């Protein structure tokens, strides 16, 4: 286990095996998936027709479609972003900041009082 050894200071930096674009592509794809998840959740609250259309399993209800949207958008955008960014070295600090802010937005949009409030504001309910 890690504690069985004395700490070994990190040595001279070696080059990353891949450009930082590969890393950022993975981050942004995950973020897009989660934001799509949040938006689809609100859309299902706003529009009953949409809610019915994403009910892929009657037992699970609209949650089944929301999961498919999350996984689908995440895994679909990942190879696209990977292809676009794989040869680029991008500012890791900036893009990780974007990821963290986006993640915070996604979490807030998933908090029921927030997404129900947005849905009510849209429908005027």
């Amino acid at each position: 286990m890690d504690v069985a050894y004395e700490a070994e200071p990190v040595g001279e930096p070696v080059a990353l095996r891949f450009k930082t674009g590969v890393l950022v592509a993975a981050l942004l794809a995950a973020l897009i998936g989660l934001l799509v998840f949040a938006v689809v959740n609100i859309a299902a609250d706003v529009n009953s027709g949409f809610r019915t259309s994403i009910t892929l399993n009657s037992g699970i209800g609209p949650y089944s479609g929301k999961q498919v949207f999350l996984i689908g958008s995440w895994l679909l955008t990942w190879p696209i972003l990977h292809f676009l960014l794989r040869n680029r070295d991008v500012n890791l600090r900036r893009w990780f900041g974007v990821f963290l802010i986006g993640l915070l937005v996604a979490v807030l949009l998933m908090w029921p009082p927030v997404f129900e409030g947005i849905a009510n504001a849209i429908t005027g309910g």
Partner: protein
Amino acid sequence: MRIPLLSRIRKMEPSLATLLLVTVGAIAVVGLLMAITAPTGVLIGETQWRVISAFHGMGATAFLLSATIAVYLAWRLYAGEIRAFKDLKWLTAFAAVMSGVTIVFGTWIYIAYRAPGGPRTYFLGNMPEVHQIFFEFKEFIAMFTLPMFVTAAYILWKYDRSLLGHREARAVPSLLILLGYTFLLVAYVLGAAITKLAGV
């Protein structure tokens, strides 16, 4: 009188593989006997939903255990003092798999939760805020663990030890694991509390 066979066995050095085989075999036999004879229905319930619920809970617990060790190693990675980098890679990959397994069983058990007369009916009739706020948030936030751990595992395996010399690059998987662990804790605690109030 000397019995040659016993003498030979006594002189044999048992290999680790033999010991492992014997131990696993003994556990399997004892486990089988217990599974056949124990009144497990009393423990987990008689319906198929109780069994699926048990798998969901066990999956979540295995996920929690692996993620707890991973988050400690992720801190060591972040601080630039990790030695067990290989352990972190495997633990993060295992946690990502367990996240997927727990979500699958959680989605499956959700059918029983939503069924007429199920826990959702009970909560909406007696404690509507438990379903409308806590359960809904739990089912959503649990999904956040999968992209966190899958992305962290991907980065650790893809970049491997080349991450170690780059403070910003190694901070990314470290913080992803920490975030995933936070989402897991929220879902785990809410799940345990809701199950205590009304199980399937």
